């Protein structure tokens, strides 16, 4: 059952592509694979921490004060993620710090807290967080790789900021020419829109499923 929850969050109910949640950081940070992975890791830490904590405290949190409590817990984990990033991957921190900070107000995370973690046992909530985090990471990396490839003609630049000096060798240069637009903010909208259209055309988004619709309504 738990594997089903994971799959649901990562693929069928992918926060970015199916629910279109968390788009602000998704569009802003996805200009390279290394930035995308940094934000994906920070979001995963916050999702797991917040979902787990909220599920564990679900019997104690007074219903009328649940939103302040959720935001307090999410803000705590966001700050923890930010400090950890600053300590472990300083170069990546310099580039994406702003977007890690606004994870606090990411509706994807608050949505999972409200719709799932506050009503489910800790194990299921952690599975849901892992699935959602994997789905968000997938969306970030796909968009980041597409944009980096279009903009610079290469992939995996500056990975040493995340994985140490050895990762500098991972950089791939396929062509010298790049389409600068893809790295700029308008490129984020255009590339994300085209990817979404391609996924729709390929039948990625499952329609006509009332259970998912109901869950989406709750989350947004």
């Amino acid at each position: 059952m738990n594997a089903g929850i994971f799959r649901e969050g990562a693929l069928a109910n992918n926060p970015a592509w199916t629910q279109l949640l968390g788009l602000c950081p998704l569009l802003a940070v996805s200009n390279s694979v290394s930035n995308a992975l940094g934000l994906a890791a920070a979001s995963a830490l916050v999702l797991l921490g917040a979902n787990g904590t909220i599920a564990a405290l679900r019997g104690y949190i007074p219903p009328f004060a649940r939103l302040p409590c959720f935001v307090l817990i999410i803000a705590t984990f966001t700050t923890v993620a930010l400090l950890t990033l600053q300590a472990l991957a300083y170069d990546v921190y310099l580039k994406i710090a702003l977007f890690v900070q606004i994870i606090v107000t990411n509706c994807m995370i608050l949505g999972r807290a409200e719709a799932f973690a506050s009503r489910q046992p800790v194990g299921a909530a952690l599975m849901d967080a892992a699935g959602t985090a994997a789905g968000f990471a997938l969306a970030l990396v796909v968009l980041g790789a597409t944009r980096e490839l279009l903009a610079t003609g290469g992939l995996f630049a500056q990975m040493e900021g995340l994985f140490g000096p050895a990762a500098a060798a991972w950089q791939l240069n396929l062509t010298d020419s790049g389409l600068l637009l893809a790295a700029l903010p308008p490129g984020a909208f255009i590339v994300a829109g085209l990817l979404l259209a391609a996924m729709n055309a390929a039948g990625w988004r499952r329609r006509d499923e009332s259970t998912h619709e109901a869950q989406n309504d709750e989350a947004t």
Partner: protein
Amino acid sequence: MAELKPVLTVAAIALGCALALAATHRLTESRISRNETAAERAVLADVLGRRVDDALVPDLAVQPAIWDDCGRMLVARRDVRGYGGPIRLLFTLKGNGRLARVVILGHQETPGITGFLQEGWLGSLTSTSAGELRAMDAITGATITSRAITDGLAAALDAPEQLGPVRPLCSS
């Protein structure tokens, strides 16, 4: 008493969060400050061509500021106002009123138009005087950014004393 319980619950959660943050801060504090100084030290060593004694590395966030590198050259920090926000310049001055090197510590200019900064334009400023800087052509498409940098550097060359008292970067 019944209405007090939810208040206490929220307070307890807040306390737990505060403790978690304090613990994380404790754990990461020293590593973060090490990362910050290492980043500044690397830039400074690059500009000076030598490593500065750890105890003497200045705080590059503070500007305007000017330092004397053992009488070899002057090193200065100054922000100029670009198109998207401050452009944080670190540069060295030769004794004859000319620039030696210019490094950009950070900026918020539009990514697409700042390519000229990576393409050797900063290198072309080497050995320029204030007059030559003012006479330089602005970069097409990045007029405000390039003008802000050349004007800011020219002003610093004209009146280095405006950058504050010269402080030493050497122990002797």
